[in-house]
């Protein structure tokens, strides 16, 4: 337990000192995971909306697959991306391996199924409420999907948050495709893994505390937004 107290003190002094290395790692963590969340939403939301509003043969199978992919192990995603981005792989010419771009790509693949599956559920519930009215308005599918996405925006924010939480907390994928290179691809989780392997458990734990506080901050901001929206009955 003495480690925990030490870790808290260390976390505080690290933050207070404004250590530039720490800031760099925090900034890269946020940049990579926020980019991945944005891209995953760009892919996952339309897909979720399409499945939510469409009835087609094999829809049940699609749902099962979508839900199952939510449990993709990060290290497997990392390996798949590594195989493709490796110089000897089909996308090696891009030169993306061991760059933040590769990390963003891996996390996008990791969380896009989460965004798609959760948004499908949210949008399908809303669609049940709106469907008859929309048919009366004679909307095109595009218009229906657009309206659902916009009206579910605050619920979808939570969906995005679930994706972000998974992305910012995972280490398996980014350490394989990023390589944990100092000043280039080192993020909070890979730094924590590194300090753990050095046996510097208090520093590892301190970084973990900072990561937790960051996640808390992002969640609190979204929660505040949702509460504002709820007062307008937009949720």
């Amino acid at each position, binding site marked *: 337990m003495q480690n925990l107290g030490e870790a808290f003190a260390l976390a505080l002094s690290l933050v207070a000192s404004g250590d530039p290395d720490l800031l760099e790692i925090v900034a890269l963590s946020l*940049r990579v995971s*926020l*980019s991945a969340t*944005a*891209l995953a*939403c*760009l892919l996952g*939301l339309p897909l979720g909306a399409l499945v939510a509003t469409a009835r087609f043969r094999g829809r049940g199978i699609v749902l099962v697959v979508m839900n199952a992919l939510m449990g993709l192990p990060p290290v497997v995603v990392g390996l798949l991306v590594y195989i493709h981005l*490796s*110089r*000897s*792989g089909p996308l*090696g*010419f891009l*030169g993306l*391996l*061991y*760059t*933040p*771009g590769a990390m*963003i790509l891996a996390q996008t693949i990791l969380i896009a199924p989460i965004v798609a599956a959760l948004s499908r559920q949210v949008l399908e519930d809303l669609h049940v409420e709106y469907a008859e009215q929309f048919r009366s308005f004679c909307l095109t599918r595009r218009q229906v999907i*657009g309206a659902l*996405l*916009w009206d579910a*925006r605050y619920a*979808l924010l939570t969906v995005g948050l679930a994706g972000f939480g998974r992305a910012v907390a995972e280490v398996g994928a980014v350490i394989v495709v990023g*390589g*944990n*290179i*100092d*000043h*280039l691809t080192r993020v909070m989780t890979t730094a924590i893994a*590194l300090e*753990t*392997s*050095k*046996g*510097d*458990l208090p520093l590892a734990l301190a970084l973990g505390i900072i990561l937790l506080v960051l996640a808390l901050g992002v969640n609190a901001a979204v929660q505040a937004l949702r509460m504002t929206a709820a007062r307008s009955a937009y949720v």
Partner: protein
Amino acid sequence: MPNRRALATTALALLTAPAFAQEPSIIVQSTTSTANSGLYDYLLPMFEEESGIRVNVVAVGTGQAIQNARNCDGDLLLVHARPAEEQFVSDGMGTERTDLMYNDFVIVGPEDDPAGVSGMEDAQEALSKIAEEGASFASRGDDSGTHKKEMQLWSDTGVDPTEASGEWYRETGSGMGATLNAGIGMGAYAMTDRATWISFENKQDYEVLVEGDEDLYNQYGVIPVSQEACPSVNAEGAQAFADWLLSAEGQEAIAGFEVDGQQLFFPNAPEEAS
């Protein structure tokens, strides 16, 4: 849809932000033992200052480092598993292997030393004793340079510890630090390179029990990845870094790296290289 537009704008802004300074750079595939000791943090600023070449180190087990280099995902190899390194060169993947430096392995264990190996000078004898007593032993089990070295020592004792895998012999399948953490957690003996051990911060009541056997020497080699095998490599940059490491200046720098007042690596590049 305004929300999608906003998301797209954010995504673009984040992706197009400068990833890193556009200077020449190389990727070194290396081992956790060298990286965790802090050697690169000490050496790289000197080289980067002098050459203007940025060195990015990917620290993994020797086995994975060599495999990554075989996939052309590195410009230079700096590892410690001689037979595998020579195989790498003879397969045409590397230009040339050169001895760079050495350190040594030690066997660490808990203070109460249940197998009674403390002070022994013959590593094989110590391992045999551990096996005989059935005392816990934590192995990397990850095909790393350290793991290969450990297996080689076992093979000379005539004991096949993997038959006891899961009993007294515990293969963690992890890096050196993780294996030490696990070993210390279960009171097991472990073999580690001295550099990792000295800079390791979670020693608790563990100490070095066996050291000094010549069989425990740990030779590091450096190999530039061949441009013929991998057209995409930065051969010039890799050669420049290799040359610097092997030069009198680089060798001196390696000798000057200390943790807690102890020298961790002993340069031994051949004279003609420097």
